[in-house]
């Protein structure tokens, strides 16, 4: 293109060159795509191999499982998300990941999710649908047979994640520094969160404790406590000098804390 073409032929020539560029571009693109495809195929087969050789480890070793999940996340694929999107109800047509892993990892988390739902349902009456992650894990572990593989809190969080498609009911919230699983679609306001956080320290709070420690007025403390009792998230003890409001999580606690009261 050193010389600017003049005349009608120049139009033809420019059309020709652009056509050549386009065809060249498309060949480049297709070779690129082919290369990527082969790379993906290789990657997939390698991952499949990896998942197959280590399926047992993935299932039984919690650290390994966490590492595997982290690796999947790092390369931008979530084994759980991809499987829960595909209609898990339809048996045969499952996601790539389910095929890759022979469903073992998915099954592990789905089974765990079922246990999570069960425990949340069992305990909803006593805790108003809010259970500390640690307690949830303890209860699940208690229900398992001797020799069953161990479950970490990380596993439970992932299992709760698999429940997302079912609606907003199950979610993880933070109260203070501790993660809780919430199984009722309800939001805590800041006062309620503050009260629950305070109740983590001794297992209970009272109106005067809130007034002293949070600097609240009596009415505000009373309201927050009564709201939480109304939600079933705190239990009231009227046999103490001042009414105490207990966190039901302390029911499962070791019994040594009882020495501090009465």
């Amino acid at each position, binding site marked *: 293109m050193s010389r600017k073409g003049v005349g009608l032929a120049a139009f033809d020539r420019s059309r020709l060159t652009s056509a050549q560029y386009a065809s060249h571009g498309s060949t480049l693109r297709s070779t690129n795509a082919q290369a990527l495809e082969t790379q993906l195929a290789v990657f997939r087969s390698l991952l499949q191999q990896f998942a197959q050789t280590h399926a047992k480890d993935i299932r039984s070793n919690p650290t390994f499982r966490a590492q595997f999940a982290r690796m999947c996340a790092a390369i931008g694929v979530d084994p759980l998300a991809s499987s829960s999107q595909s209609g898990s109800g339809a048996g045969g047509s499952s996601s790539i990941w389910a095929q890759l892993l022979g469903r073992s990892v998915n099954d592990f988390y789905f089974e765990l999710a079922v246990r999570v739902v069960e425990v949340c349902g069992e305990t909803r*009456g006593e805790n*108003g649908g809010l259970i500390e992650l640690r307690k949830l894990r303890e209860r699940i572990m208690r229900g398992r047979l001797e020799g069953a593989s161990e479950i970490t809190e990380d596993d439970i969080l992932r299992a709760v994640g698999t429940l997302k498609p079912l609606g907003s009911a199950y979610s993880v919230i933070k109260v203070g520094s501790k993660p809780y699983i919430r199984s009722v679609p309800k939001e805590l306001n800041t006062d309620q969160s503050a009260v629950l956080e305070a109740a983590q320290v001794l297992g209970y709070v009272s109106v005067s404790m809130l007034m002293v420690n949070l600097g609240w007025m009596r009415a505000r403390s009373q309201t927050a406590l009564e709201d939480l*009792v*109304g939600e079933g998230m705190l*239990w*009231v003890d009227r*046999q103490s000098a001042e009414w105490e409001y*207990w966190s*039901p999580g302390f029911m*499962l606690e070791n019994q040594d804390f009882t020495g501090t009261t009465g």
Partner: protein
Amino acid sequence: MSTPPLSTTPTPASSSSPFPFPPEYSFPPFFTRQTNLTTHHAQLTKWSALVLAYARHHRILKLSLSPNSPATSTRMPPKDDDQAKQEIDTSELFHNARLNRQLAARDVRAVIDFLRKDGRAEYVAGTSSAGTDGEGSGSGGEGDMAWVYWRTPEEWAALVEGWVDATGQKGSVLTVYELVEGEGTKGAEFHGLDQELLLKALGVLVKRGKAQVFGQEDSQGVKFF
């Protein structure tokens, strides 16, 4: 039906061992009636499970509902100790002395009523005004007692029936005293059972046409078919 359910359930630990209380027993609000209905229901469920487990452990038949000491309940003697006392102080059940918390009489009744709905308890007739099958929440007299059925009369009846089958006593006549105290039933689950409760169980068998009870107050006999 024909296989005797003898000793299919593990025998309760001997009464000398203390009852291992569940964690909620050390949870102070457990002894206060909860205002939230759902919470209250969970509370009643836990209490009734506790009462049944406690009664099973000590083989208590008639539970005193008084939270004040001494709360004299009656039980059947442990299997290995025929001569053990039949009375036992159960005040600890509704009164956690360590926490200084106790379940109010009204709430104890709520627990018993909850058990009654399941057929797992019954007020002992004649001990007080609440003995009738009415509301049961009347004045909480000191002497109030309740049957606590860790085995229901139907379950006791099945045990008796199994024993009758296993020992080939069909068609024979036995006295109620023999069944409860006799040498022949030593080792059977129902040996040492309260006569009144045994009669309730036999009543179940009578209704099914499996037995016939006859005789007077003190010398009742039973024939099995």
